[in-house]
Protein backbone atom coordinates (compact mmCIF):
# COMPACT_ATOMS: atom_id res chain seq x y z
CA UNK A 1 0.00 0.00 0.00
CA UNK A 2 2.94 2.30 0.55
CA UNK A 3 3.06 4.52 -2.50
CA UNK A 4 6.74 5.17 -2.87
CA UNK A 5 7.20 5.75 -6.64
CA UNK A 6 6.33 9.44 -6.46
CA UNK A 7 8.83 10.21 -3.74
CA UNK A 8 11.35 11.78 -6.04
CA UNK A 9 8.91 13.37 -8.46
CA UNK A 10 7.18 15.75 -6.05
CA UNK A 11 9.08 18.02 -3.64
CA UNK A 12 12.22 18.09 -5.74
CA UNK A 13 12.21 21.67 -6.86
CA UNK A 14 15.47 23.62 -6.92
CA UNK A 15 14.54 25.57 -3.78
CA UNK A 16 14.68 22.73 -1.30
CA UNK A 17 16.57 20.00 -3.10
CA UNK A 18 19.14 18.04 -1.22
CA UNK A 19 18.32 19.26 2.28
CA UNK A 20 15.42 16.95 3.06
CA UNK A 21 17.03 13.63 2.49
CA UNK A 22 17.38 10.91 5.08
CA UNK A 23 15.71 11.50 8.47
CA UNK A 24 12.70 9.27 7.91
CA UNK A 25 14.91 6.31 7.16
CA UNK A 26 16.73 6.76 10.44
CA UNK A 27 13.66 7.22 12.53
CA UNK A 28 10.13 7.44 11.24
CA UNK A 29 8.69 8.83 14.43
CA UNK A 30 10.68 11.19 16.53
CA UNK A 31 12.03 13.70 14.03
CA UNK A 32 10.86 17.26 13.59
CA UNK A 33 12.73 17.77 10.35
CA UNK A 34 11.22 19.36 7.27
CA UNK A 35 9.81 16.19 5.78
CA UNK A 36 8.74 13.41 8.11
CA UNK A 37 6.56 11.01 6.14
CA UNK A 38 3.23 10.68 7.87
CA UNK A 39 0.02 8.86 7.10
CA UNK A 40 -2.58 11.26 5.90
CA UNK A 41 -6.24 11.42 4.86
CA UNK A 42 -6.62 11.91 1.12
CA UNK A 43 -9.72 14.01 0.54
CA UNK A 44 -10.81 12.36 -2.69
CA UNK A 45 -10.46 8.88 -1.22
CA UNK A 46 -12.49 9.87 1.84
CA UNK A 47 -15.15 11.38 -0.41
CA UNK A 48 -15.66 7.98 -2.07
CA UNK A 49 -17.22 6.88 1.20
CA UNK A 50 -18.47 10.24 2.53
CA UNK A 51 -20.76 11.04 -0.40
CA UNK A 52 -22.79 7.79 -0.40
CA UNK A 53 -22.87 7.76 3.42
CA UNK A 54 -24.31 11.28 3.49
CA UNK A 55 -26.91 10.31 0.90
CA UNK A 56 -27.96 7.25 2.91
CA UNK A 57 -28.16 9.29 6.13
CA UNK A 58 -30.30 11.92 4.41
CA UNK A 59 -32.58 9.22 2.97
CA UNK A 60 -33.01 7.65 6.40
CA UNK A 61 -33.88 11.02 7.92
CA UNK A 62 -36.42 11.78 5.19
CA UNK A 63 -38.04 8.33 5.37
CA UNK A 64 -38.28 8.62 9.15
CA UNK A 65 -39.85 12.07 8.94
CA UNK A 66 -42.43 10.68 6.51
CA UNK A 67 -43.23 7.83 8.87
CA UNK A 68 -42.12 5.12 6.46
CA UNK A 69 -39.40 3.85 8.80
CA UNK A 70 -39.77 2.63 12.35
CA UNK A 71 -37.30 4.05 14.82
CA UNK A 72 -36.45 2.45 18.12
CA UNK A 73 -35.80 4.40 21.28
CA UNK A 74 -34.19 2.99 24.40
CA UNK A 75 -33.67 6.01 26.61
CA UNK A 76 -34.52 6.14 30.29
CA UNK A 77 -32.90 5.73 33.71
CA UNK A 78 -33.65 9.41 34.02
CA UNK A 79 -37.39 9.92 34.24
CA UNK A 80 -38.99 11.55 31.23
CA UNK A 81 -42.42 12.91 30.48
CA UNK A 82 -44.68 11.77 27.67
CA UNK A 83 -47.84 13.55 26.69
CA UNK A 84 -50.37 13.02 23.92
CA UNK A 85 -53.75 14.56 23.27
CA UNK A 86 -55.19 11.15 22.49
CA UNK A 87 -54.12 7.53 22.73
CA UNK A 88 -56.10 4.75 21.09
CA UNK A 89 -55.02 1.18 21.54
CA UNK A 90 -56.10 -2.42 21.19
CA UNK A 91 -54.86 -5.07 23.59
CA UNK A 92 -54.07 -3.33 26.87
CA UNK A 93 -52.35 -4.71 29.98
CA UNK A 94 -51.20 -3.06 33.15
CA UNK A 95 -49.31 -4.45 36.14
CA UNK A 96 -46.92 -3.36 38.87
CA UNK A 97 -43.22 -4.06 38.78
CA UNK A 98 -39.79 -3.02 39.94
CA UNK A 99 -37.19 -1.49 37.65
CA UNK A 100 -33.56 -1.73 38.65
CA UNK A 101 -31.08 1.01 37.84
CA UNK A 102 -27.53 0.23 36.87
CA UNK A 103 -25.22 -0.62 39.79
CA UNK A 104 -24.01 2.60 41.46
CA UNK A 105 -26.20 4.86 39.33
CA UNK A 106 -26.05 8.52 40.45
CA UNK A 107 -29.84 8.71 40.01
CA UNK A 108 -30.40 6.06 42.67
CA UNK A 109 -30.52 8.38 45.71
CA UNK A 110 -31.86 6.60 48.81
CA UNK A 111 -34.04 4.21 46.81
CA UNK A 112 -31.39 1.49 46.58
CA UNK A 113 -31.54 1.85 42.81
CA UNK A 114 -35.04 0.45 42.51
CA UNK A 115 -38.09 2.23 41.13
CA UNK A 116 -41.61 0.99 41.64
CA UNK A 117 -43.31 1.30 38.27
CA UNK A 118 -46.58 0.55 36.58
CA UNK A 119 -45.94 -1.33 33.38
CA UNK A 120 -48.46 -0.67 30.63
CA UNK A 121 -48.33 -2.76 27.49
CA UNK A 122 -50.37 -1.99 24.39
CA UNK A 123 -50.36 -4.32 21.40
CA UNK A 124 -51.27 -1.66 18.81
CA UNK A 125 -51.32 1.98 19.78
CA UNK A 126 -52.04 5.21 17.90
CA UNK A 127 -51.06 8.51 19.47
CA UNK A 128 -51.96 12.04 18.42
CA UNK A 129 -49.55 14.93 19.09
CA UNK A 130 -46.97 12.88 20.94
CA UNK A 131 -44.52 14.90 22.99
CA UNK A 132 -41.61 13.52 24.99
CA UNK A 133 -39.24 15.55 27.13
CA UNK A 134 -36.24 14.70 29.30
CA UNK A 135 -35.03 17.17 31.90
CA UNK A 136 -31.26 17.36 31.43
CA UNK A 137 -30.80 19.99 34.12
CA UNK A 138 -31.30 23.52 32.82
CA UNK A 139 -32.55 22.43 29.45
CA UNK A 140 -35.02 19.90 28.12
CA UNK A 141 -34.61 17.57 25.19
CA UNK A 142 -37.96 17.78 23.45
CA UNK A 143 -39.26 15.32 20.86
CA UNK A 144 -42.59 15.89 19.17
CA UNK A 145 -44.25 13.85 16.45
CA UNK A 146 -47.62 13.10 14.94
CA UNK A 147 -49.03 16.63 15.00
CA UNK A 148 -49.94 16.53 11.30
CA UNK A 149 -52.34 14.27 9.46
CA UNK A 150 -50.27 11.14 10.12
CA UNK A 151 -50.43 9.86 13.68
CA UNK A 152 -47.74 8.11 15.68
CA UNK A 153 -48.20 4.34 15.69
CA UNK A 154 -46.48 1.73 17.79
CA UNK A 155 -46.73 -2.03 18.12
CA UNK A 156 -45.89 -3.87 21.34
CA UNK A 157 -45.54 -0.53 23.13
CA UNK A 158 -44.41 -1.02 26.72
CA UNK A 159 -44.02 1.84 29.17
CA UNK A 160 -42.75 1.71 32.75
CA UNK A 161 -44.32 4.71 34.45
CA UNK A 162 -44.43 6.16 37.93
CA UNK A 163 -47.28 8.55 37.15
CA UNK A 164 -50.07 8.30 34.64
CA UNK A 165 -53.01 10.65 34.23
CA UNK A 166 -55.71 11.24 31.64
CA UNK A 167 -59.34 10.52 30.85
CA UNK A 168 -59.54 6.81 30.16
CA UNK A 169 -62.17 4.50 28.71
CA UNK A 170 -61.76 0.72 28.47
CA UNK A 171 -63.69 -2.02 26.68
CA UNK A 172 -64.06 -5.49 28.25
CA UNK A 173 -61.81 -4.69 31.16
CA UNK A 174 -60.74 -7.42 33.58
CA UNK A 175 -59.40 -6.12 36.87
CA UNK A 176 -57.56 -8.21 39.41
CA UNK A 177 -55.95 -10.85 37.21
CA UNK A 178 -52.69 -12.39 38.19
CA UNK A 179 -49.98 -10.59 36.22
CA UNK A 180 -48.55 -13.85 34.93
CA UNK A 181 -51.81 -14.83 33.23
CA UNK A 182 -52.25 -11.77 30.99
CA UNK A 183 -52.95 -12.54 27.34
CA UNK A 184 -54.19 -9.40 25.57
CA UNK A 185 -50.77 -7.98 24.73
CA UNK A 186 -47.31 -9.49 24.45
CA UNK A 187 -46.14 -8.87 28.00
CA UNK A 188 -46.38 -10.89 31.19
CA UNK A 189 -45.74 -9.74 34.71
CA UNK A 190 -44.42 -11.63 37.73
CA UNK A 191 -46.67 -14.23 39.37
CA UNK A 192 -48.77 -13.10 42.29
CA UNK A 193 -48.97 -9.45 41.27
CA UNK A 194 -52.17 -7.46 40.72
CA UNK A 195 -52.94 -6.59 37.13
CA UNK A 196 -55.68 -5.56 34.75
CA UNK A 197 -56.27 -5.93 31.04
CA UNK A 198 -58.72 -4.73 28.42
CA UNK A 199 -59.54 -5.28 24.77
CA UNK A 200 -59.35 -1.62 23.80
CA UNK A 201 -58.20 1.51 25.54
CA UNK A 202 -58.74 5.17 24.81
CA UNK A 203 -57.01 7.83 26.92
CA UNK A 204 -57.49 11.53 26.24
CA UNK A 205 -55.02 14.15 27.52
CA UNK A 206 -52.51 11.46 28.41
CA UNK A 207 -49.61 12.45 30.66
CA UNK A 208 -47.01 9.95 31.87
CA UNK A 209 -43.80 10.11 33.86
CA UNK A 210 -41.81 7.19 32.51
CA UNK A 211 -38.60 5.39 33.28
CA UNK A 212 -38.60 3.27 30.17
CA UNK A 213 -40.45 3.09 26.90
CA UNK A 214 -39.91 0.33 24.44
CA UNK A 215 -41.71 -0.64 21.30
CA UNK A 216 -41.31 -3.29 18.64
CA UNK A 217 -41.89 -0.71 15.95
CA UNK A 218 -42.39 2.98 16.68
CA UNK A 219 -43.34 5.12 13.69
CA UNK A 220 -42.92 8.83 14.24
CA UNK A 221 -44.22 10.93 11.33
CA UNK A 222 -43.42 14.63 11.49
CA UNK A 223 -40.61 14.03 13.96
CA UNK A 224 -39.04 17.13 15.52
CA UNK A 225 -36.16 16.95 17.98
CA UNK A 226 -34.90 20.06 19.74
CA UNK A 227 -33.70 21.56 23.00
CA UNK A 228 -36.19 23.70 24.85
CA UNK A 229 -36.43 25.61 28.12
CA UNK A 230 -39.76 24.05 29.02
CA UNK A 231 -40.78 20.41 28.89
CA UNK A 232 -44.05 18.96 27.63
Amino acid at each position, binding site marked *: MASSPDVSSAGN*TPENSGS*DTPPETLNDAGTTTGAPRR*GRVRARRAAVMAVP*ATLVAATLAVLTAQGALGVQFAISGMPFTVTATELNGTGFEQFGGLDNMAEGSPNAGDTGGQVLVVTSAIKNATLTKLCQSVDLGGTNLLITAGSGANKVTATDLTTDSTELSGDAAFNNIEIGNDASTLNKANAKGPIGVFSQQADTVRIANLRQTNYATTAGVFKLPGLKLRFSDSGC
Partner: protein
Amino acid sequence: MPDPHSVPDRPRRGPRLAFRGWRARRPFWGGLLLALGGGEILLTEKASLKVVLHIGMQGLAGYLLPTLMVLLGLLILFNPSQRLFYSITGVLLSLGTWLTSNLGGFFLGLLLGVTGSCLAFGWLPDQEPRVSRRERRRRARAEARALTAEGAEGTA
Protein backbone atom coordinates in the same frame (compact mmCIF):
# COMPACT_ATOMS: atom_id res chain seq x y z
CA MET B 1 7.95 24.62 10.05
CA PRO B 2 11.51 24.67 11.44
CA ASP B 3 14.42 25.34 9.16
CA PRO B 4 15.90 21.98 8.16
CA HIS B 5 19.42 23.30 8.73
CA SER B 6 18.83 24.02 12.40
CA VAL B 7 17.77 20.48 13.26
CA PRO B 8 19.80 18.94 16.08
CA ASP B 9 22.01 16.01 15.14
CA ARG B 10 20.25 13.57 17.39
CA PRO B 11 16.47 13.38 16.97
CA ARG B 12 14.67 14.55 20.10
CA ARG B 13 12.83 11.96 22.18
CA GLY B 14 9.90 12.23 24.53
CA PRO B 15 6.46 10.84 25.16
CA ARG B 16 4.80 13.59 23.12
CA LEU B 17 7.00 12.98 20.11
CA ALA B 18 6.63 9.25 20.47
CA PHE B 19 2.85 9.71 20.48
CA ARG B 20 3.11 11.97 17.43
CA GLY B 21 4.98 9.24 15.61
CA TRP B 22 2.52 6.59 16.72
CA ARG B 23 -0.33 8.78 15.51
CA ALA B 24 1.38 9.29 12.16
CA ARG B 25 1.28 5.58 11.44
CA ARG B 26 -2.49 5.04 11.77
CA PRO B 27 -5.78 6.78 10.94
CA PHE B 28 -5.84 8.26 14.42
CA TRP B 29 -8.75 10.71 14.15
CA GLY B 30 -10.83 8.26 12.14
CA GLY B 31 -10.56 5.52 14.75
CA LEU B 32 -10.99 7.92 17.65
CA LEU B 33 -14.13 9.57 16.22
CA LEU B 34 -15.72 6.20 15.40
CA ALA B 35 -15.08 4.91 18.93
CA LEU B 36 -16.34 8.16 20.48
CA GLY B 37 -19.48 8.03 18.32
CA GLY B 38 -20.25 4.51 19.55
CA GLY B 39 -19.62 5.63 23.14
CA GLU B 40 -21.94 8.61 22.79
CA ILE B 41 -24.75 6.40 21.49
CA LEU B 42 -24.24 3.95 24.37
CA LEU B 43 -24.49 6.87 26.83
CA THR B 44 -27.90 7.86 25.45
CA GLU B 45 -29.27 4.36 26.08
CA LYS B 46 -30.40 3.61 29.56
CA ALA B 47 -33.17 1.09 29.21
CA SER B 48 -32.66 -1.65 31.77
CA LEU B 49 -31.33 -4.97 30.54
CA LYS B 50 -34.54 -6.68 31.62
CA VAL B 51 -36.59 -4.53 29.29
CA VAL B 52 -34.12 -5.00 26.46
CA LEU B 53 -34.17 -8.78 26.79
CA HIS B 54 -37.95 -8.70 26.99
CA ILE B 55 -38.12 -7.04 23.56
CA GLY B 56 -35.68 -9.55 22.09
CA MET B 57 -33.32 -9.15 19.16
CA GLN B 58 -34.55 -5.68 18.17
CA GLY B 59 -33.85 -4.33 21.63
CA LEU B 60 -30.48 -6.03 21.78
CA ALA B 61 -29.44 -4.51 18.44
CA GLY B 62 -29.73 -1.09 20.06
CA TYR B 63 -26.80 -1.98 22.27
CA LEU B 64 -25.02 -4.29 19.83
CA LEU B 65 -24.43 -1.73 17.06
CA PRO B 66 -22.82 1.04 19.15
CA THR B 67 -20.71 -1.55 21.01
CA LEU B 68 -19.40 -2.80 17.67
CA MET B 69 -18.71 0.80 16.63
CA VAL B 70 -16.50 1.26 19.71
CA LEU B 71 -14.69 -2.01 18.97
CA LEU B 72 -14.13 -1.13 15.30
CA GLY B 73 -12.80 2.31 16.28
CA LEU B 74 -10.28 0.70 18.61
CA LEU B 75 -9.37 -1.91 15.99
CA ILE B 76 -8.70 0.87 13.46
CA LEU B 77 -6.30 2.40 16.00
CA PHE B 78 -4.51 -0.79 16.97
CA ASN B 79 -4.69 -2.78 13.74
CA PRO B 80 -4.63 -0.10 11.03
CA SER B 81 -3.68 -2.49 8.23
CA GLN B 82 -7.26 -3.83 8.16
CA ARG B 83 -8.74 -0.32 8.10
CA LEU B 84 -10.73 -0.77 4.88
CA PHE B 85 -12.86 -3.57 6.28
CA TYR B 86 -13.22 -1.85 9.63
CA SER B 87 -14.21 1.49 8.15
CA ILE B 88 -16.76 0.02 5.70
CA THR B 89 -18.35 -2.02 8.50
CA GLY B 90 -18.13 1.03 10.74
CA VAL B 91 -20.01 3.31 8.38
CA LEU B 92 -22.77 0.74 7.86
CA LEU B 93 -23.16 0.25 11.63
CA SER B 94 -23.17 4.00 12.21
CA LEU B 95 -25.98 4.44 9.70
CA GLY B 96 -27.82 1.47 11.21
CA THR B 97 -27.89 3.07 14.64
CA TRP B 98 -30.35 5.62 13.24
CA LEU B 99 -32.94 2.83 13.31
CA THR B 100 -31.88 0.89 16.37
CA SER B 101 -30.46 3.30 18.92
CA ASN B 102 -32.23 6.58 19.70
CA LEU B 103 -31.85 8.02 16.18
CA GLY B 104 -28.11 7.36 16.29
CA GLY B 105 -27.64 8.88 19.75
CA PHE B 106 -29.74 11.89 18.69
CA PHE B 107 -27.73 12.23 15.48
CA LEU B 108 -24.48 13.20 17.22
CA GLY B 109 -23.08 9.68 17.52
CA LEU B 110 -24.10 8.85 13.97
CA LEU B 111 -22.32 11.96 12.69
CA LEU B 112 -19.15 11.13 14.64
CA GLY B 113 -19.22 7.51 13.47
CA VAL B 114 -19.71 8.34 9.78
CA THR B 115 -17.05 11.07 9.87
CA GLY B 116 -14.61 8.74 11.62
CA SER B 117 -15.24 5.91 9.16
CA CYS B 118 -14.74 8.22 6.18
CA LEU B 119 -11.47 9.55 7.62
CA ALA B 120 -10.24 6.00 8.24
CA PHE B 121 -11.30 4.97 4.73
CA GLY B 122 -9.55 7.91 3.11
CA TRP B 123 -6.35 7.54 5.11
CA LEU B 124 -3.19 6.35 3.38
CA PRO B 125 0.11 5.62 5.08
CA ASP B 126 3.45 7.17 4.22
CA GLN B 127 2.37 10.31 2.37
CA GLU B 128 4.34 13.35 1.29
CA PRO B 129 4.21 16.11 3.90
CA ARG B 130 1.42 18.60 3.40
CA VAL B 131 2.22 21.47 1.00
CA SER B 132 0.15 24.62 1.04
CA ARG B 133 -1.82 25.51 -2.08
CA ARG B 134 0.20 28.69 -2.61
CA GLU B 135 3.42 26.73 -2.47
CA ARG B 136 2.09 24.14 -4.94
CA ARG B 137 1.06 26.86 -7.39
CA ARG B 138 4.45 28.56 -7.07
CA ARG B 139 6.22 25.30 -7.83
CA ALA B 140 3.98 24.58 -10.83
CA ARG B 141 4.76 28.04 -12.21
CA ALA B 142 8.48 27.54 -11.71
CA GLU B 143 8.31 24.19 -13.46
CA ALA B 144 6.38 25.65 -16.40
CA ARG B 145 8.91 28.45 -16.71
CA ALA B 146 11.78 25.96 -16.71
CA LEU B 147 10.02 23.92 -19.42
CA THR B 148 9.44 26.91 -21.68
CA ALA B 149 13.05 27.97 -21.19
CA GLU B 150 14.20 24.50 -22.25
CA GLY B 151 11.89 24.62 -25.25
CA ALA B 152 13.30 27.98 -26.27
CA GLU B 153 16.83 26.63 -26.02
CA GLY B 154 15.85 23.62 -28.15
CA THR B 155 14.48 25.77 -31.00
CA ALA B 156 17.34 28.22 -30.91
